[in-house]
């Protein structure tokens, strides 16, 4: 095919594209995947007594951590989805948010009585928490991958990892509706581990799924 003919054909396919289409695609993916994971939490895991929980500071400590992480990771994904866009501070903000919770968690451990420290750190559910967060992240990650395949990530592995963090962080936020653990030290370790697992999954699969 001659290039002029290809150009002719492509020009005939000029549909108007609304501004901000990329961000909208990513937000829609987050919402769609989030709905699936929310259903899994409500139906499969069951929510804790929420009227009580939303009055507690620890509930918002957890939601704040994972919610902010979701936003920062999504901004990173958006920048990675556009060829030639500088990441600037976005990955640093992600790292900073994780650092803050680690500091809070460490502070809690060190200020607690030594006998209590292990219980504080492990809680009751440390074994199931990271795998559950990873599982809940999968529908969200799948939706983000579908959105990214319509965009143009020039670094597929990085984009996959960032999408994994966003998916894991949103999954962890939804998981917080069920999870009764209250310690910052617990959240800093096991929630972060689940999110990191989702990030690793994204980095490994992104390389293949996000090529174009």
């Amino acid at each position, binding site marked *: 095919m001659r290039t002029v003919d290809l150009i002719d054909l*492509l020009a005939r396919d000029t549909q108007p594209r609304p501004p901000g289409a990329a961000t909208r695609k990513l937000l829609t993916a987050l919402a769609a995947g989030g709905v699936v994971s929310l259903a899994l939490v409500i139906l499969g895991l069951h929510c804790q007594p929420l009227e009580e929980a939303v009055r507690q500071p620890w509930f918002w400590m957890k939601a704040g951590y994972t919610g902010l992480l979701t936003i920062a990771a999504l901004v990173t994904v958006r920048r990675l989805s556009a*060829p*030639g866009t500088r990441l600037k501070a976005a990955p640093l903000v992600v790292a900073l948010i994780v650092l803050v919770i680690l500091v809070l968690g460490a502070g809690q451990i060190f200020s607690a009585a030594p006998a209590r420290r292990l219980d504080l750190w492990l809680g009751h559910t440390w074994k199931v928490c990271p795998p559950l967060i990873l599982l809940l992240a999968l529908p969200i990650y799948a939706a983000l991958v579908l959105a990214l395949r319509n965009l143009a990530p020039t670094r597929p592995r990085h984009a996959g990892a960032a999408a994994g963090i966003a998916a894991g962080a949103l999954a962890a936020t939804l998981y917080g509706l069920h999870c009764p653990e209250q310690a910052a030290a617990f959240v800093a370790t096991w929630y972060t581990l689940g999110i990191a697992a989702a990030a690793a999954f994204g980095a490994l699969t992104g390389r293949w799924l996000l090529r174009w």
Partner: protein
Amino acid sequence: MPDMTVPAEASTAKPKVDPEERLRALMIRGLDGDSRAHRQLLTVLSGHLRGYFGRRVRAATHEVEDLVQETLLAVHLKRDSYDRALPFMPWAYAVARYKLIDHLRRSNRRVHVPLEDAGALFAAEDAEQGTARTDLDRLLEQLPFRQRSLLQDVKLHGLSIEHRSTA
């Protein structure tokens, strides 16, 4: 009343058209649905791409042209990823570079048979047509179904665009 008919060249304040601004304006108008602007953008880009790839890919002309076409296709299909507030040329360059790297990775494994050697004595147009067809399938694979079937109907089966749209 100021003289409105002073030719632009006579004005000492005539601004040079910045290529970035020109291309970015074409891109944005294309995003708003202006097919002429989009066509012009792709045409201008194809010239730049040919030069860019030609200097970096030690290959037959048709292979360079394949790369140009693949990149134009990517520019078209991935234009949602362009942020209108940001400069256009870094975006276009990054797309071209991505395709170049992809091509270099792939072509190491591919056995290349240069058809244009046999046809070089004859009309260059024919050789280009022939070799382009063998790569058309690979090019088509990248298109979503709707655009792929449109291309196939129009180019391979000879339907006009208007007829295909109403089919």
